[in-house]
């Protein structure tokens, strides 16, 4: 994999030809539209479902809407329920963000030194360490999840935030180390050496030279880890034992009984998409595709 700077280069020099579709065959044009519809299309009926009150077979639109039904209802319906304390939505959103944030901090902090060593030093057993860091991609989550749950039950960490944060480190640390290793590989040691020659100590060099230079890379790795953490279901569900609810576990509880998608589940589905959409807007701007792919094991 080539070493690429993380920040996107300015695209001012590129000719912008928005309305030319050179080389796109009619089938490719159809295919791109198909992909866009397959990705975004389902959001429309989900929105409709979240605002429905009565939506029976075979109607394509609800016959009674939540807006009308809520006037006469004695209990919170649809979005009223979603945003009421009964749904545990606030709690789940806060937990998702809190756990994601703490996992990001801990994960980046412990991955930075490891990545630096892996990028710059040669030592015996290095290829073994690199292989070991890839294995969490391949070992099934469910095996790790059940094993860790048993350990945490004995340690009294099952159902606790600490337990969940520790569990989230298992899939995220290997990601972070891979992304950060490529960051350090792209950073020449010249500037640090110059700082040392000019009399800066190791800590000063780290603080004033190394960290500012790799900061964009740290942000990229951090966003990545946050994204992975907010998407984790299995480890949270197993280790959390239903006591710590996050957006994915909340949605699981709503839809695991099967059947049709009720308005409340549709609403929670839409809310669960929001962190991903926000992160997509941020990462598309700041992280190059190659680096992004690398984080995912590419």
């Amino acid at each position: 994999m080539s070493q690429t700077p993380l920040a996107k280069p300015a695209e001012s020099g590129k000719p912008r030809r928005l309305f030319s579709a050179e080389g796109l065959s009619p089938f490719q044009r159809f295919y791109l539209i198909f992909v866009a519809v397959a990705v975004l299309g389902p959001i429309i009926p989900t929105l409709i479902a979240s605002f429905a009150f009565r939506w029976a077979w075979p109607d394509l639109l609800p016959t009674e809407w939540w807006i009308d039904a809520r006037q006469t209802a004695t209990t919170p319906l649809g979005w009223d329920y979603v945003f009421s304390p009964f749904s545990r939505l606030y709690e789940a959103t806060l937990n998702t963000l809190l756990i994601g944030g703490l996992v990001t901090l801990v994960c980046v902090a412990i991955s930075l030194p490891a990545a630096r060593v892996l990028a710059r030093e040669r030592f015996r057993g290095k290829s073994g360490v690199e292989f070991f860091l890839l294995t969490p991609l391949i070992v099934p989550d469910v095996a790790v999840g059940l094993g860790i749950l048993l350990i945490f039950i004995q340690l009294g960490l099952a159902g606790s935030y600490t337990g969940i944060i520790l569990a989230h480190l298992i899939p995220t640390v290997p990601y972070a180390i891979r992304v950060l290793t490529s960051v350090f590989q792209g950073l020449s040691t010249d500037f640090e050496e110059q700082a040392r020659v000019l009399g800066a100590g190791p800590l000063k060099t780290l603080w004033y030279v190394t960290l500012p230079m790799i900061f964009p890379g740290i942000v990229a790795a951090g966003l990545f880890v946050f994204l992975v953490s907010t998407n984790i279901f299995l480890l949270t569900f197993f280790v959390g034992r239903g006591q710590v609810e996050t957006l994915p576990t909340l949605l699981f509880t709503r839809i695991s009984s099967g059947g049709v998608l009720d308005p409340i589940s549709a609403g929670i589905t839409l809310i669960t998409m929001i962190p991903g959409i926000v992160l997509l807007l941020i990462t598309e701007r700041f992280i190059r595709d190659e680096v992004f792919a690398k984080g995912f094991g590419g």
Partner: protein
Amino acid sequence: MAAPDQTIAKPAVPRRSWAGRLRILAMLAPASLVLVVLYVGSLIYAVLQSFGYAPIYQINEFPTTRYYQEMFTTPGFWRSVWYTFYYALVPTVVGLILSIYLALTLRKRFPAKGLFQYVYKLPLMIPYLVGISLTILLFSNGGIIARSLHAVGLLDNPSQFPRLLYDHSGVGIMIVYIWKQVPFMTLILYSVLLGLGPESEEASATLGANRWQTFWHVTLPQIMPAIITGTAIIFAFNFGSFETPYILGGGFPNTLPVEAWRAFDDADYSRRLYGMAVVTFLSLVSGVLLYLYIYWYRRFERQRGRS
């Protein structure tokens, strides 16, 4: 992930002072400790339990193969293995084909390409459970697609719509996997294609190859390492995936991860050891399949004289 180039001799590992070695160890320690204690620890613990070591439930029959024997003779177990394999493999292959075509198309210039780069990545960023929700809404028997077919007069009632969810056909499960994973695979392939540049393909075209020949003999071999890595990751993920088959699968026998969880969740604690036997078997099969896959690929490349 590029394979290490074996033609370049590795520089010797430098001789180091004790302080230097200690520094390397200290910097690797925090991350390694977390992974070794939590990840390796939990795997070892799972394996030990599967062989009968569980003092917390007052069970210590170590070493016994009782739970494995029970597993292999459970009716429906081998069907469970088959479903796990089948639901993992089909979306990997179908998703790969869709992704290769999407990645190739993305290299072209087209209107609103910048916007499309956002759109196609959306499924990558959100939990599988969202995909499951959307699939329920669209593909259930009374879902949006069945209703649309009714609206155009192709269906009279929901029972005429094929049962795609909550069924052993696993179509709903595979739809979720493909929806979530095509962006992932496309992203990997597209970034490799960007790195390669169009030169070798242009040369091939100049030398008279048609588009199919160029793809088959020039492009595909160059993206093959990325295809192997990507499909290995996706297959392994699907093989160990829990929530999708749990919700959209067809009841007993379901895939191995679901059966393991059910055993674990049983009121009878001794069933937990059975669950551990299932996940140990699952990890072992997953590891062996991936090893064979990569071994087979390396041998193929050697035969072609490529590596």
